[in-house]
């Protein structure tokens, strides 16, 4: 045993001496570079449509021999979140070849493409290049158009850098007839509305709704517009008659108006769809106990504060000519209280609603904020049936934001209940504005006081909801066309939010879509060229933004 210990001590001493030995090595040094690929020629942002073929070919720095290098192309998710479909974190080796090519089978979303270039002759010194790569859905991000005739319609999508935040500069096209390409048929019925519902983790369970009359339409997968259920499948049970007029979504709240009845459903599950159930109803103590909802609603409302939380949407009853509140227990609430000075009572305005849209709301001191709902209203001829009276159009402004409660002056912990008549704040008389009675289409800006209205051939703009100016006469440039649809582009946080006016024209066979860049505060044309997208089959009856 002692011998064994002695051997260990000797060995350790030998190693200690050897460690002090001076190294007079004879080495060859060279400057190693890991700049193999010319990154300046590597695309800064890539967009690949799902299932489409793609190729990425790196350009090498002069003097580099690519054949002596090895490669690894990896794809990872931008966010550190699992893939919504597989539940796994994406970090996949796409290829180990010099050039990357294949078909993009990953689900739509934002990824990072990573190229690792190694030099095996020099200790695998590596160059790593990271580039954002967006996998776009087959039905691309852009402005969806619902167009067709009295019996069928289709969805086409305007894809350009104004509305699509991912495509490279210069991209400007129409992705035509996406619905029929995917489903092998057009949508039965006359076009009524096309809507996007952002739902699920990272939008993975989002849907596109296409609504028609009298068939109803479909609920479709957002990526391809493949049909998931027909109109009756949206309900449990199906309504007695299909007469869709409006659909709205805000967070988990969905409302749908069919045949004058409003249906509410809270989509509280992260994935999946809960069908609309019974039509929202008034308490039996309210008279009249029925209502006929117009196709307009406001969902950007103060329903954050506890007292207002049960409210999902405000809408208008054309039958009793009153504003009503759709609540999340499927009941309908009424407005109460006194009207503000100079304003109007929401419980009994007694007017005919022509059009309504939420728009520009002036700022308020925190914690209060305004949410204006602009309602074009008209007096009523009390004949049978009642009808709107000519020459009486006005803009009624309802503020659905968080407002001080007059019962508690100076106490900013209190706020007005949502169903207070105090919210009918302004009436602007636009009845004297040119052609206002003939106006069929309206759109209100969200960045400044802008009201566009259009007859068959003329577009007017008003900045005070009282007077107006002729904005654009389409009969000059597009003789024989009539306007069929008009909308200011709105998408919160989007670079073009409130700064494009889209106008659809129809010549009896085909449609043209005008894209007019506007000053979001005044509505004036910016001077940027107006773009016309032509040869869109049938009449464009509806349009809406598809964010991904």
């Amino acid at each position, binding site marked *: 045993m002692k011998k064994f210990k002695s051997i260990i001590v000797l060995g350790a001493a030998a190693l200690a001496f050897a460690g002090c030995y001076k190294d007079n090595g004879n080495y060859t040094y060279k400057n190693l570079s890991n700049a193999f690929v010319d990154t300046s020629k590597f695309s800064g942002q890539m967009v690949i449509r799902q299932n489409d073929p793609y190729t990425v070919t790196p350009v090498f720095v002069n003097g580099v021999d690519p054949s002596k290098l090895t490669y690894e192309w990896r794809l990872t998710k931008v966010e550190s979140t699992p893939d919504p479909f597989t539940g796994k974190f994406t970090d996949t080796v796409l290829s180990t070849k010099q050039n990357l090519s294949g078909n993009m089978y990953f689900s739509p979303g934002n990824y990072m493409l990573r190229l690792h270039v190694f030099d095996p002759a020099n200790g695998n010194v590596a160059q790593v290049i990271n580039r954002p790569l967006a996998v776009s859905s087959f039905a691309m991000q852009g402005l969806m158009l619902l167009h067709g005739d009295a019996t069928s319609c289709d969805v086409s999508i305007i894809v350009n850098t104004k509305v699509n935040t991912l495509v490279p500069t210069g991209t400007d096209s129409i992705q035509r007839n996406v619905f029929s390409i995917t489903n092998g048929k057009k949508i039965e019925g006359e076009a009524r509305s096309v809507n996007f519902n952002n739902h699920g983790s990272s939008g993975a369970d989002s849907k596109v709704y296409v609504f028609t009359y009298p068939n109803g339409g479909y609920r479709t997968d957002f990526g391809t517009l493949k049909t998931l259920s027909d109109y009756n499948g949206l309900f449990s049970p199906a309504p007695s008659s299909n007469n869709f007029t409006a659909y709205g979504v805000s967070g988990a709240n969905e409302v749908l108006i069919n045949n004058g009845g409003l249906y509410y459903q809270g989509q509280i599950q992260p994935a999946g769809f809960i069908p609309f*159930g*019974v039509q929202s*109803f008034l308490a039996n103590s309210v008279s009249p106990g029925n209502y006929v909802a117009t196709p307009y609603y406001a969902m950007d409302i103060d329903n954050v504060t506890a007292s207002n939380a049960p409210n999902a949407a405000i809408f208008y009853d054309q039958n009793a000519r009153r504003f009503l509140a759709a609540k999340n*227990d499927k009941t309908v609430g009424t407005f109460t209280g006194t009207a503000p000075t100079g304003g109007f009572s929401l419980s009994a305005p007694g007017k005919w609603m022509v059009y309504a849209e939420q728009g520009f709301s002036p700022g308020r001191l925190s914690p209060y904020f305004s949410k204006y709902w602009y309602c074009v209203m008209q007096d009523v001829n009390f004949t049978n049936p009642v009808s709107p009276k000519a020459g009486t159009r006005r803009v009624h402004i309802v503020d659905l934001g968080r407002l001080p409660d007059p019962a508690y002056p100076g106490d900013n912990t209190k706020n007005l209940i949502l169903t207070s008549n105090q919210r009918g704040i302004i009436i602007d008389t636009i009845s004297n504005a040119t052609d206002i009675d003939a106006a069929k289409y309206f759109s209100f800006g969200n960045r400044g006081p802008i009201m566009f209205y259009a007859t068959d051939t003329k577009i007017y703009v008003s900045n005070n909801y009282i007077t107006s100016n002729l904005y654009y006469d389409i009969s000059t440039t597009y003789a024989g066309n009539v306007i069929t649809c008009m909308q200011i582009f709105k998408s919160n946080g989007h670079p073009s939010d409130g700064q494009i006016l889209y106008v659809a024209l129809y010549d009896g066979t085909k449609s043209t879509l005008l894209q007019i860049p506007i000053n979001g505060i005044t509505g004036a044309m910016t001077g940027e060229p107006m773009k016309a997208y032509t040869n869109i089959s049938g009449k464009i009856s509806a349009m809406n933004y598809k964010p991904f």
Partner: protein
Amino acid sequence: MKALIYIAGAFIAGMSLLTACKKSSIDSYQQDARVYFRIPGEFDSKQSRDSLIYSFPFHPNVTTQDTLWFEANIMGNATSTDREIGINVITDSSNAVENVDFKIGSKIMPAGAFKINIPIVIYKKAVVKDSVLRLQLAVTENSDFKLGYTGKTKAIFLWGYKFLRPDNWEPSTTDASKPNYAAAFGSPFSQVRTKFILDSCHITNLPDPSNRIIMENYNSTIRSALNNYNRGKTFTLQLKDENGVNIFFPTFGGPGLG
């Protein structure tokens, strides 16, 4: 000396490891064959329940008879021959009469089986519309089977010609999270309430109370229907049950559930 201890220890450990790998023949269950009853849950057959309650009004398409099922499970091995299960009607606890109100189907545990579903055919008669029939069965020991698990040797069946209150109508007193009907359909249980629910929802039987989406849908449907029924009526003329109690339906679910 120490080295000797180490060597001896290593030898013993090695032997132990080798013997640990020896194949051991384990005796299979050779106890007496026994049998016990189980009534599967209505909506989840993996769940068990104490009794089965059947109401003919929930089954309007039934004209003359229907069949209730329960399981007989064995303890022990399956055998190569059929065996008879001893099933006895406890007449002291039953008012249903065998071969008049009901008939028990096969009582045979087939060869090779560990479980058999036993049918009880119940007869629908016009003359006993208001009565509730009760049947209590018990395992009786015979030459093939002894009694199984204590507490699982009996099965209780109730059926009647009016709506019978499901045992999970009211919230459980021991488990508040257990699904119940009262949360969506209100309380107390009554004939009028039940019929109003079924008629308003266009259903013939009560849904699975654990399916919150369906319960929410039916809840809003019956609230709307009751609201319409009561519209224009004074409180005293509004919908009442057979005991004169005004019927009210709560709102099922929290904000956002609707």
